[in-house]
């Protein structure tokens, strides 16, 4: 977290903002995987982040996958190419989409620029941003109370919606959107780093 603290007061660089957003995504996704019971609860360990204890997967392959995807996302965040990230939860047996978590990104214009290199910087206080992120993460945990039980073996996948003018890196491929038949949607809180604004929406199948 310390890397996001900037030299001048109340300033946050584009890179710092991207780091915050990817951190949020990482812990948000880990939380969802745990809360929704996609993987056995034994394979998670508790860590302290944003003033919350968050359960993070200890499975090497999951972590490898997440760090690869989130690393790429961070790059696209700095370049302003990312539009949306979707976490899809599908039924393993019949490939039906059970749940979709949308992390929608908006780029916020800022007037401030860094004195050194002229890059845009945000003016929001880090404390405030972290509090906002904490509130969303809390809300993700509390969704357990109303989301339907995933009573089948499930798998998850991440879909990344980007601007059309990007180069598709190695090991990446294009795919189609995932829809849920007969779904209900719920918007969670959003947070903003004053450079990026993130809305979290969960859509789930109605029984």
């Amino acid at each position, binding site marked *: 977290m310390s890397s996001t603290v900037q030299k001048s007061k109340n300033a946050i660089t584009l890179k710092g903002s991207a780091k915050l957003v990817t951190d949020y995504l990482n812990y948000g996704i880990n939380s969802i995987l745990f809360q929704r019971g996609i993987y*056995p609860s034994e394979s998670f360990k508790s860590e302290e982040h944003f003033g919350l204890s968050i359960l993070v997967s200890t499975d090497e392959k*999951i972590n490898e*996958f997440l760090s690869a995807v989130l690393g790429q996302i961070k790059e696209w965040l700095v370049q302003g190419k990312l539009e949306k990230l979707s976490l899809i939860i599908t039924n393993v047996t019949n490939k039906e989409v059970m749940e979709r978590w949308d992390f929608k990104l908006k780029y916020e214009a800022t007037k401030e620029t860094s004195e050194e290199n002229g890059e845009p910087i945000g003016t929001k206080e880090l404390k405030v941003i972290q509090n906002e992120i904490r509130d969303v993460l809390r809300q993700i945990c509390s969704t357990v109370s109303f989301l339907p*039980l*995933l009573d089948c073996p499930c798998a998850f996948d991440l879909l*990344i919606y*980007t*601007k059309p003018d990007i180069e598709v890196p190695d090991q990446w491929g294009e795919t189609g959107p995932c829809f849920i038949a007969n779904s209900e949607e719920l918007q969670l809180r959003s947070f903003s780093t004053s450079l990026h604004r993130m809305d979290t929406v969960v859509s789930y199948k109605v029984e």
Partner: protein
Amino acid sequence: MDDPLTKGPVPRWQKRALDKNTSASNSSLVNSSINNSKIKTKTPSKADSRKTPSKTPSKTPKSSPGKNLKTPNGGDRFIPSRSATDMDLGYFKLNQRDSDEENGEYKSPSKIQMEKAMTENLIGKDPSGMRILEFQKKAPAAPEGFQNSLKVVYSQSKTPSAKSNSRYIPQAPDRILDAPDIVDDYYLNLVDWNKNNMMAVALRNSVYLWNAGSGSISQLTELEGSDYVCSLSWMDEGDILAIGTSLGNIQIWDAASMKKQRTMDGHAARIGSLSWNSYILSSGCRSGLLVHHDVRQREHNISSVEAHSQEICGLKWSPDGKYLASGGNDNALNIWPSDGDLSTPIHTFRAHQAAVKALAWCPWHAGHLASGGGTADRHIRIWNCNTGAATYSVDTRSQVCGIVWSTTFKELISGHGYAQNQLIIWKYPTMTKVAELSGHSARVLHLALSPDGTTVLSAGADETLRLWKCFVPAAKTKKDAPESKPSDNLFTMKGIR
């Protein structure tokens, strides 16, 4: 192409317009396209003539509609003023739309808006400027056999409620079926009820299927000679029935097509217990041998263990497929793990003083097992197989032949032998009696629960099968109560043969 129009009869509206001499057209574009010479030649009428309709009513506000008809612009009650409407333009516009639709290009603006809104809602943004990417190395799937442990947190409807102590439990069976010739042997398992509401009952050497929904009965098979059926078990999904025989063979039957799929050997003595864990069928033999069969493979025997020193009479896989419980005539209760070493039990419970036949896994607490002992023991004991702890026990004062957990209430029901031959409903975890259901004139041999969780089937040594509607959810009980009372005396007697 234009000729027929001019030669043809003049349309009614044109005639009228001509008669009244007020028709006007100032759109040359329209005229050229329609090419109606009659209209073209007409001189435009005075502009003020259009004002007349508004003038007339103002002069005579209460004049009858009949008078209005005489106004020079000749409106009718549907279109008060024809002169004000530009018929040619309208006609042109109509034609133009038609031709566009023929080309398949025409979409009304509202429709385009609607489509856009739909895609925006579905995809989140205008799809035109987006690419959807995925990382091709996928995250691993959850480990095999993993079950969402959050079931406990979520399923309010499925997790039995602790309250409603005062619910109505019918004291008489809902239905009685005849089961002639059912083998009176404590060590066998002769009834099973599957998810598709099909009940299988073994009556000595034949197996009958009773469709609990429609009430239809069919004979699945009949064994030859002195061979008789010792155990039955439905696969969790689908209509696959495993039958264990006294000669030590296992037959796999497809109940939907009424055809035998295969026969598997591997036992030297009768097979008194069977249990499925997806495609693995575990069978317990009189010799104490426990064999796991993979029914898909030609070499079906994947593991055999000397599990007990005497006959295995109880065998149950837990609903999550994690543990197998086996109870034997050697008074032992063994818990086997599904992963790892199949040859050594993780727990061996020796608390029972008699054969352990009645076994049931708690549907809402993973790893919790209820077991009941025979005549010398008479106890129901609850075990936590995750830790190996004995959690509760109760003396039932009678041989325990079968246990079934309710899926609607936090209760379990047990079937008993001498002296009362009754069924007892127990509250869990207090293990207090909720109700006793008596009716069988000989010991209750086997118990099974209906797929909807409302009805318990008990097979007695008195050659009857009784269906008890003892787990009807509270809201329904209120409705059912007055209906079921009068029917208590009118048992629907129905022979299974």
